């Protein structure tokens, strides 16, 4: 997750990314990353549910263009 492990990110956008590393969503919830905490806190205040990353899809093959 810190960019120095064997996992890789194959693409990213402003608000998400695709990676072969599983469970990043739950790892971030437990992290002490300040930016994560700020985001989590704001989602909690806005919606009543604290949230960071969520897993939208899981795919086993695809085409990156």
């Amino acid at each position: 997750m810190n960019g120095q492990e064997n996992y890789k990110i194959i693409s990213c956008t402003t608000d998400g990314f695709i990676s072969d590393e599983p469970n990043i969503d739950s790892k971030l919830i437990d992290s002490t990353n300040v930016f994560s905490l700020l985001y989590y806190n704001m989602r909690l205040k806005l919606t009543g549910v604290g949230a960071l990353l969520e897993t939208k899809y899981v795919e086993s093959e695809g085409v990156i263009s």
Partner: protein
Amino acid sequence: MKDLARLNTPVGIELSGDLHEYIDYFLGSYHGGRNESYIYGVVKGKFYDYDLPGAYPTAMAMLDYPDWDSREMLREQNGDEFFSSLNYDLIKSYTALKIKFEFPSTVKYPNIPVRLDFNSVVFPLTGETFCTGHEFLLAMRLGCRIKILSGVYIPFKSLKLKSKLNSNSISDSTSDSNSKRKFFVQDHLIKQLFELKYSNKTFDSVEKSISKSENYHFLKQALQQTPVQEEIDTETETETVESNFYLVVKELIQERVKYPKGSYMNLLYKFLANAGIGQMARGLNQKVKFDVRSNSTKPLPSGELVSPLYAG
């Protein structure tokens, strides 16, 4: 900022006060959204698509009005020096910098945007560019060496008020159950966490030690509890420090959840919440769009909500 093009005219410069002295930094540091692929073609293996829920409205809710009177033009200095002078306050500011930077070669995904040409933005290990204060902070987090050539810093308007509230009410409230104060405690602890991490610069070890500390457990507990914003708003009207950006997003979300998921009204409020940040950036790049009425391409005009400070 209704007419950006007219600002860069002799009359526009003279009539805009000193806006022209720093607006270019914010225009330069606005690079639009990030969209990158590191692999092309067919990929096989298990991949996970992660997404920040409500990213655009959430980011917009964190904005605030700029405190124009407290703005500062920045001189040449190294990144550490600049960071030390502002620390956590940099998060609560509109900051635009012209920098030279160099990431360690071990960083796989650098975060500083550099324009390659009119249509492309890349994220190299080294370069010279304009960036925002938040991009600067993340780069520092990744161990980047940064030299600030020049720039501008404008604090959020709420910063002074929040500092005053913190100093008046936080010191004796970390252990009581007064829900009115929880928001301030959360913010205060995040600030403490931030300062501790950045002062040590060995993030991994600091994160481990923080996770064992009393403050961290309190913070996590506070974050997991029911939000208390309604009580803050109603009970302490004069102490409310939330910006109008937050209030607008909050209202749109409250309206949206009144309707079933997937219904027209639910999607309309979702669209309104997401569109806000886009309206703040509309026309900044002078991009041309196809106009169905005239059957031709035209430059996208800016509008009342456009501001390179908010958009970046």
